[in-house]
């Protein structure tokens, strides 16, 4: 039980470091650690399939993409655009207002059922595969079209226009 609170503390700490780090490269590295703690959360929830997918897709693919673009654009602390302190304080206050509103609305929320989570077998690969390929077969196929569209779009956007080159 205490493992959850320790990992949750680490997640919050590294998420804060992500948005407050001065250098963009440091931000990406802190975000990788944040996603690793999320993987630990998935393991604690016994969602093994999502833990592996989170590890491979988020920490592997997406973060490498971010880091690759940062290196490609050659960004560092000197090129970082800065907002005025007033805007920063206002942003933090607005975010905390959102948190207070959410927490206040949770007070009236009555969660029923047993407290224990993670004592289920539904997160295993076999169970999820059965659900995915029976109940959610059509959305699964449509998501492949979405990924194809994104791939074509990304290549089209990033390609050099021969007229301008």
């Amino acid at each position, binding site marked *: *039980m*205490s493992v*959850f609170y320790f990992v949750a503390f680490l*997640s*919050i700490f590294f*998420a*804060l470091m*992500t*948005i407050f780090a001065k250098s963009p490269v440091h*931000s*990406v590295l802190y*975000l990788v650690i*944040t996603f690793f703690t*999320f993987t630990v959360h*998935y*393991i604690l*929830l016994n*969602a093994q*399939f*999502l833990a592996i997918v*989170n590890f491979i897709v*988020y920490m592997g693919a*997406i973060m490498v*993409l*971010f880091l690759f673009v940062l290196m*490609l*654009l050659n*960004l560092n602390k000197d*090129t*970082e*655009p800065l*907002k005025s302190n007033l805007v920063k304080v*206002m*942003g*933090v206050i607005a*975010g*905390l207002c*959102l*948190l207070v509103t959410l*927490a206040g609305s*949770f007070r009236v929320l009555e969660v029923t059922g047993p*407290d*224990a*989570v*993670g*004592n289920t077998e*539904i*997160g295993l690969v076999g169970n*999820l595969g059965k*659900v995915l390929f029976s109940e*959610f077969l059509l959305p699964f196929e449509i*998501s492949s079209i*979405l*990924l194809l569209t*994104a791939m074509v*779009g*990304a*290549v089209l*956007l*990033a390609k050099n226009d021969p007229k301008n080159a």
Partner: protein
Amino acid sequence: METIVQEIQGVPLNHYILFCSLIFTIGVIGVLIRRNVIIIMMSIELMLNSVNLLLTAFSAHSGDASGQVFVFFIMALAAAEVAVGLAIIVMVYRNTRSVDINALNRLRG
């Protein structure tokens, strides 16, 4: 495996809700206070991840596998979003030589 399951038993669902809303709020604050477009996209990833974790917690809590399948779709969507978004950022950088979000206000016309 048994010890891990033993460890997690007894964490109330309320604590998951609070933790995920905290991470979501950190993502919102990141969008508000940074001007670097790449870091704004990273904050959006943070928000998507907090929602993913909360969906998984609800799914494990109620014993319904649909929530975890939905998280899988959100991950596919996030990958597509990052690919297209970063391509747009590279395009913008090529034209304006900066990743400042204010460089995009010329979209206002």
